[in-house]
């Protein structure tokens, strides 16, 4: 978190509520492999994303982006910053 962002988004994918549409801002992770995996799955800045549903125990959750469903744990979803789209 040492870097200064032009926009400091405090909302992450894990905060999205059902029905909310978000736009990905940044993946805040030092793990290059994870970042690359995310971008190859379409999790890239500017991409729209919505929460589809949560697993029965609240974690992991399914997100809808690029017309498909992606399952992610909340721990990882917290690294993906979003801004809400109205």
């Amino acid at each position, binding site marked *: 978190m040492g*870097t200064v*962002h*032009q926009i400091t988004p405090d909302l992450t994918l894990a905060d999205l509520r059902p029905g909310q549409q978000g736009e990905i801002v*940044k*993946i805040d992770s030092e793990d*290059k*492999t*994870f*970042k*690359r*995996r*995310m*971008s*190859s*799955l*379409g999790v*890239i*800045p*500017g*991409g729209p994303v919505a929460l*589809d*549903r*949560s*697993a*029965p*125990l*609240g*974690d*992991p959750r*399914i997100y809808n982006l*690029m*017309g*498909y*469903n*992606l*399952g*992610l*744990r909340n*721990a*990882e979803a917290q690294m993906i910053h979003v801004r809400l789209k109205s």
Partner: protein
Amino acid sequence: MTSSVTVALVGNPNAGVTSLFNALTGANNPVANYPRVTTSSATREITHKGVVLRFVDVPGIYSVNSQADDEKVGQDFLLDQSPDVIVNVVDAGHLDRHLFLTTQLIETGIKRITVLNMIDEVRRHGTVLDTEMLASALGAPVVETCALKGEGVDVLLDTIVAQVAAPAADAIRLHYDTHLEAAIVRIQDHLANLHPQELTPARSRWLAIKILEGDDTIINRESDHPELIALVTKERDHLAHEHDEDAATMLATSRFAFVNGLLREARQQHDDPDQRFKLTRILDNFFLNRAFGLPLLLLIMWVMFETTFSLGAVPTEWIKSGVDALTKFVDDTLPAGMFHDLVVNGVLAGVGGTIVFLPNIVILFFFMAILSGTGYLARASFLMDRVMHKFGLHGTTLIPMVAGFGCNVPAVMASRIITNKRSRLIAILISPFMSCSARLPTFILFAGAFFADLAGTVVFAIYMLSIASAILSAVVLNRLIPGSGSDAFVMDLPPYRLPTLHSVLHHMWDSAQGFVAKVTGVILVGSIIIWFLQEFPKDVAYSQDYDAGIVQLEGQPDGADKDEALRSLKAAQAQEKLEKSYMGRVSIAVTPVFKPLGFSWHESSAIMTGFVAKEVVVATYAVIYAQDKGSTGWTDAIKAAMPTATAVAFMIFTLLYAPCLSTIAIIAKESGSWKWAAFSVAYSLSFAWLLALAAVTIGRLLV
């Protein structure tokens, strides 16, 4: 000698690469509806129009350089093997994401063909794609296919042959943002100077992009050029500073922007994805329901095992009457003597006693084909991730675990789906606890004999115990194996699909064939050996002169006392003969180990022979009880031989003890060390022994 052309089938996980490989080559490799069914490359040659095409089914990759372990096989193949033609398989319903890989393949400069697979799914919903426009933008012919129905396969073969003959075309260039483009050109020039005359412009541009993206494999190959590394580091820092974003993400964003722009033009009519996935959403509302999603998963498992038991009972009866009739015929036809005994009490008892379980196994595989083919298995791993994460496991581990219900060997191999090395090792080591179909006959036999009406539920309970043991072991192993770290749960959940009848039938047919091959192979030989071991030596040094005793008893006046004394003396003689047979001697030698569990030497024999293959456990019982099964059948003989508590302990022991020989070998191979295989044997034996002891102790208290 005709030289062959290497054609690599490359695509995202679950794009249908293996289905297309099967359709092109006539292979029957396993397909299912979840990502990463294929974990190692498969190769098959065919000849089309006089050209020998060597097809390679490359395991699915999301990108050419994500550098994740589970994509390594696919990525290494592309880097090192340089195929003549790449057939890039994309899911026509997920072009937005799948064409990302295409943009990377374009830059390799290798001849390509883009295959829009599962085209029927999008057509049905009204999408119309301008394939000519796609072909010119992607710089490669576009072929529409539906691999499962074999549609478009002939056109594809013709296109491949034409592409082989065609001269190499100029590679399409993706245009990046000015800063990125300038950085690429600077690195490309540097590379070209370092390797003069070696690199085509397309190749050096590709390498430059990959180095900028941070591909470690390529950087390592250039490690003797410190000035290049310095340049790359400077360019990356500069970009990160200017754009507040790393170069890899910038490149990915540009690629997706290219795909996005392309699709905006190529999709002449676009269906509503909400409409296309409506069914999936409805089914997910049900199967992933927050209130009953998890109980439903349990119920599905229960139905699966209950049906495997109860529905299997009917055809089992048919096979059994066939075996009985054959046995009776042979029994009456063959003259009395050793050969007669060998055939009737050895071969027919062992083989016949095992083959009756064929229907159960086929039914089990039917369910497994449905679970994996519909997409439910991917959901199950999503549902279970939270629970499994608590125990240090990954939700995805459920996939190799369920595969283990069929056979542990593919289960160990399926653990390649797990990215983290340590998590994967743990997944490999817990695989043998999954109750493979070879163990199913033992449970059906014992549950049927001791629990009658509840048998299906008892079989289900055994499978639950199998999962619990695997999870418990994961907890233990997590403490034993040094290191830490687990993977992120990143799973792309496919839409629900109806598995094709062909693939389900093939799955069942394959399991039936495998089982029959085992029965006529290892079980047949095993039964003969077991029969000899328990029949010989013929002349036993008895502890007392039974024959004289019998003669003496027969001389006495008739009466109930005399009959009783005769019977017990004869039984004692038979018992002593068995005990002094080779089998008896060896089994009695190890029986002290099993004494606390209440096992007799019968159980010890079955356990020892089961090391080879778990089906032999039942065959051993069949042979041992062949002589005294009489008219009531060996189910009753087994029931009379031990209390229920011991039977439960025996089922548990059979469930958990030592992987079979094939599994031991695959554990050594996949874990990379025989030490882990040896550990697996020692660990599972102790685990099985302790749990069986607990069961028999509790059982005795209850009865």
